[in-house]
């Protein structure tokens, strides 16, 4: 179903929130003029002091992200969605704001276009083909707990990690271990119904 037409989008709430968030956080790039860095520029930069840069691995490609300190996704809800975060009075630094997150909540991270992502928990790992029969042994060796296989061949697995930045750290650690073909967070991302 087209955006802007028809009466209903199943993800309308998420998308409209994304839209309003992008509006609020839009990096006002020079109107095809004056030089400025557009890379990574978004609401996090506007927020100033709270900005924190992170990264993840999309396959072998390292992708930069920035924490948006003003928004969270609450995965305790039936339908996870972006929410403007409530913070402790006086909490202006990112670390202080992070401390206000409850288990099951995630910070919002943004790529350079401002598109949001969040960390519901879990890491998706893809085994090297040679290790498919040794998955449990490998998991035990690395101290990770499998949740479920995501394919009939049992090559791609969701493994346990708590919601939030801990799962990003685990994904990067598993990637850096070299023991997997890929390791990436189990991202939450808004997708558009067409």
């Amino acid at each position, binding site marked *: *179903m087209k955006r802007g037409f028809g009466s209903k989008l199943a993800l309308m709430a998420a998308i409209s929130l994304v839209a309003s968030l*992008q509006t609020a956080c839009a990096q006002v790039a020079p109107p095809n003029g004056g030089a400025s860095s557009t890379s990574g520029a978004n609401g996090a930069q506007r927020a100033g002091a709270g900005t924190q840069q992170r990264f993840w691995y999309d396959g072998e490609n390292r992708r930069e992200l920035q924490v948006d300190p003003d928004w969270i996704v609450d995965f305790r809800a039936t339908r996870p969605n972006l929410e403007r975060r409530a913070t402790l009075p006086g909490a202006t630094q990112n670390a202080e704001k992070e401390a206000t997150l409850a288990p099951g909540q995630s910070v919002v991270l943004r790529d350079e276009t401002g598109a949001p992502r969040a960390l519901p928990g879990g890491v998706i790992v893809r085994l090297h083909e040679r290790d498919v029969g040794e998955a449990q042994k490998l998991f035990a060796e690395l101290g990770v707990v499998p949740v479920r296989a995501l394919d009939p061949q049992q090559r791609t697995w969701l493994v346990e990690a708590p919601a939030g930045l801990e799962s990003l750290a685990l994904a990067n650690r598993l990637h850096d271990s070299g023991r997997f073909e890929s390791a990436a967070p189990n*991202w939450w991302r808004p997708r558009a119904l067409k």
Partner: protein
Amino acid sequence: MRSVSPYARAIAISILGLLAACGGGGGGGGGSSSGSGGDDGNPDGPVQLAQQNCSFAYAPQKPSAGTGADPLLSRQWHLRNEGQSGGRVDEDVRAIAAWSSSGKGEGVRLAIVDDAIETLHEDLFPNLAAFRNYRPGAAPDTHPLPCAPDDTHGTAVAGIAAARDGNGMGVAGVAPRVALAAYNALAAGLESDVADALRRGADVTGVYSNSWGSPDRTGALNASGATFRNAILDGVALARGGRGAVYVFPAGNGGCPASAAPCSPDNSNYDGYVNARGIVTACAVDIDGQAPSYAEPGANILVCGMSDRGTSGPGITTTDVQNRYRFDFSGTSASTPMVSGVAALVLQANPSLTWRDVRLILARSARKNDSGDSGWQENAARLSVHPYYGFGVVDAAAATALARSWSSVGGSGSLRSCSYAKSPNLALHDATTVSDTIQVPADCTIGNIEFVEIGFSATHSYSGDLRVELLRSDPASPPAVLAASRTCRNDSGGQISCGSYDNWVFGSVRNLDEPAQGKWTLAVSDTVTGNEGTWTAWSLTLWGR
């Protein structure tokens, strides 16, 4: 016109139903499936409803069966257009013509991967073969039913592909006797759910229909991610005993009609989902056979289905939530399940076909719509191709006829590739065009290209300034515009970054059936003054036989 189902009415006074629908509490959680479909819901068993707070109420009972003509069939101009809704006669997908010669999808499983789907709908349940509920807190083997008034999308999509015919109710799908699998993998927005659903039941699933993708009308690059791409590559390589599944995704609705200004028009090559190898990218044409106002161009577009104009006139008639029907479904969400339904009819006509065969059959049998439009050009293999229409509108009758006599080109195992990479390190100055050429040598023996991947890396302080075009002069083939110069915008019209070209991969089918050998040139223009950069690298991977 809209009816309320007997079971929906019954629930209003059914304590059991109320408890089931609105009782609250948790279900089985994420489950522990192996991704093999082992704990999918079973339509033959008792109806299991998730326990959650919902606006909609459903009774734990199956809808009654019926016989007789489908009362809304005549409204479904996309199946056979006799001018009943206006527009051009014969602008349709030739589905009814195909049914009489090839069947209606019997024996083929078609999965809808979407948000909630009303699997207990009277016109969907008779074809239901499998389902899984991904909604947080719901047991996986419960029905993936809509929960809120805006949860209508998946139900509409499912009806277009797979509504039951001849049951005296509602509408008919393009493949009205297909075995329907319903996966609400977008319910929580999680990567793991999508990855799971795209391989679920892969041993028996012929087609996965997906009416979702990247946000539209931003102009920004939106990557899909390795998890998604691996799911597709697994599916085409391993599903159906190695013959592979057909994955259909929408080109998108990112065109910018005047009413949508300010907005940034998309090209489907900005969408990482439909650039992925293994995807059938589906566009839409309207009841006149022309591009709707929301259409996007793209080198990855293979074929179109029918949909609305985007301005006025008829939409698509299909199933709606609460056992109702609707007449206004729209966008490439509507055209995508039509293409999927035709793919299912093709697989029924010849079950031995591979995923590659189906793609080729859809393209070669497609109908050249809007034939007077100047966008149509012949590629070097003499195939007519159009930036908005790909190879044209799917023609179920022609496709199933071709399928019956088709000699398979093989599956993923026999697909060959040739890869080349260069690092031109060319400065991208304002208002200039630079180009670089890869000469594919004779030792690349691909005589028939099936897919082209163009990797592109450039540093530029505003990537939207760049126009990227793929050219072939030997043999001569029409240019493919992979990216246009643009200002990227959010929904409110505010300017945003367009993303960076950091090994961004454009997919293209424009060179279908051409030989690989020859000159391939990438031309990059910085059309706007003020920002400059460097074209650091590009790669060319040709897939075919």
